[in-house]
């Protein structure tokens, strides 16, 4: 039981850490790296492309990956319980 909670918690904290690095790092990155701040792609400013477009598919992808991993953990646990 505590193994299940631990593995789920480890997975959740992994996603949260990734999110914190990504989201927490972005304002600093944009502040401290002027070339990135002022760069343009297809005529649009890169900070806008990152904040207004790119983050959303990343969130959705991370979410789906998490759901699959969490269900995998649960299946392992179910098999363990039923074998006993």
């Amino acid at each position, binding site marked *: *039981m505590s193994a*299940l*909670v631990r593995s*789920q*918690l480890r*997975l*959740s904290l992994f*996603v*949260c850490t990734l*999110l914190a690095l990504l*989201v*927490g790092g972005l*304002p*600093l990155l*944009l*502040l401290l790296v002027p070339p990135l*701040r*002022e760069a343009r792609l297809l*005529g649009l*400013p890169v*900070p*806008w492309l990152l*904040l*207004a*477009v790119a*983050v*959303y*598919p990343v*969130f*959705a992808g*991370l*979410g*789906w990956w*998490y*759901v699959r991993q*969490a*269900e995998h953990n*649960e299946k392992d*646990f*179910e098999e363990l*319980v*039923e074998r006993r």
Partner: protein
Amino acid sequence: MNLAAVALVAVATLLAGSYGLRLSRTTSDFYVASRTVSPLANASAIGGEYLSAASFLGVAGLVLAGGADLLWLPVGWTGGYLVLLVLVSAPLRRSGAYTLPDFAEARLESMAVRRTASLLVVLIGWLYLLPQLQTAGRVVAGMTGAPAWAGGPLVAAVVIIGVLGGGMRSITLVQAFQYWLKLTALAVPLVFLLAAWRRDGAPGIADEAWLLPVTGDQQLYSTYSLILATFLGTMGLPHVLVRFYTNPDGRAARRTTAVVLVLLGVFYLLPAVYGALGKLYAADLADTDGVVLELPRRLLGGALGEALTALLTAGAFAAFLSTSSGLTVSVAGVIGQDLLRGGVRSFRAATVPALGVPLALALALPSSLPVATMVGMAFALSASTFCPLLVLGIWWRGLTAAGALAGLLTGGGLTGAAVVWTVAAGPGEGWAAALLAQPGAWTVPLTFLVMVGVSRRTARPAGVARTMVRLHTPEGLRLDRGDWRPRRV
């Protein structure tokens, strides 16, 4: 034409509500739609309920006023669901709780914590409802020529009739419909607006300071505090959590949340574009919340402009109705269950104060801060109270009733004081004003510290081991989960 659009949305909402009335008969139907809703319908309903006037109108307005830094607001409002997904969704569904106070009672076995949580649900709900009703007044007045006080009571009347008519079942159908209505209402005009912008030679924005993100310390603090409050505040919003109970099990709750991430991501691509077009064509607007509704007139004009304005007005009105309905059900549920005697009759009686108090406040304070700023404060309050309660309650056996109570009072008291100060004093300059306007960065960590610190010195609830089994194991397994049930309401 705008008046007709508003009337059409109101009538459609009420019709869907009366359809629900025939389907819902028992109390549990009333609250949670008997858990028979599919993940896509449920996710659409969450999206429909969640995308309030702050998202439909407010984000574009704030982006127009503040530039790139404000793009963080929709990012946080979406990312909050990712945090909710990984930390809260499945265990919360498995707890069997209808509401946050139910969860507090189930996990901590304390009526004092339950009552404090109830009080906070009501406060967060009111803080969220107030700007919806204020903005409804401004929009309905601006778009139809009605007097400024009329919009709030109009929204309140439709919500009350809908909620009294059908409860949650009708609301689930209505909310799911409203997500797609809002998405269409924002996306279709944008196609025409962008075409007009191209015909205009696709001008760029010259204002570099507006285009570029953070420059100073204080702005950096505000950005981080906003990120923290929105990412962690989503999980504690009362109208969002009650939706998780309509999933059949914990796994479905997770999948629903993952679909919500996609739906919100698609929707939030749009307001930023409205903000940027507003910077080009409507930079002179005094009330920036109106930019979304103003653009078709300025770029297109004529019959097409009028038709698109009517569509946008319908979408905005749908946003007022859906969020206000969801909040009213949650607040009324808590008032009915914890302050009145419980049961359907109490729930119905409770809808009056649930909506009446913010309506009275909205009429007394017709307009203060931008809608998205006010909603941001509800997020800050939720992030510094319910987020620590849920996260520690679900993942740490050590959380005690005394610890939770101390944390809720600390976080709620400090954030509440900051909110009252900011609303009363209006926007200010300097560090003190920034710390009070965006309190999340200091109140959230403080609440976590207080909860952990006090819990370490007090005794754990007797049934914590069984509660943990209940929260974390798949429903299919036969294990001892304890016999706690939410009180029949």
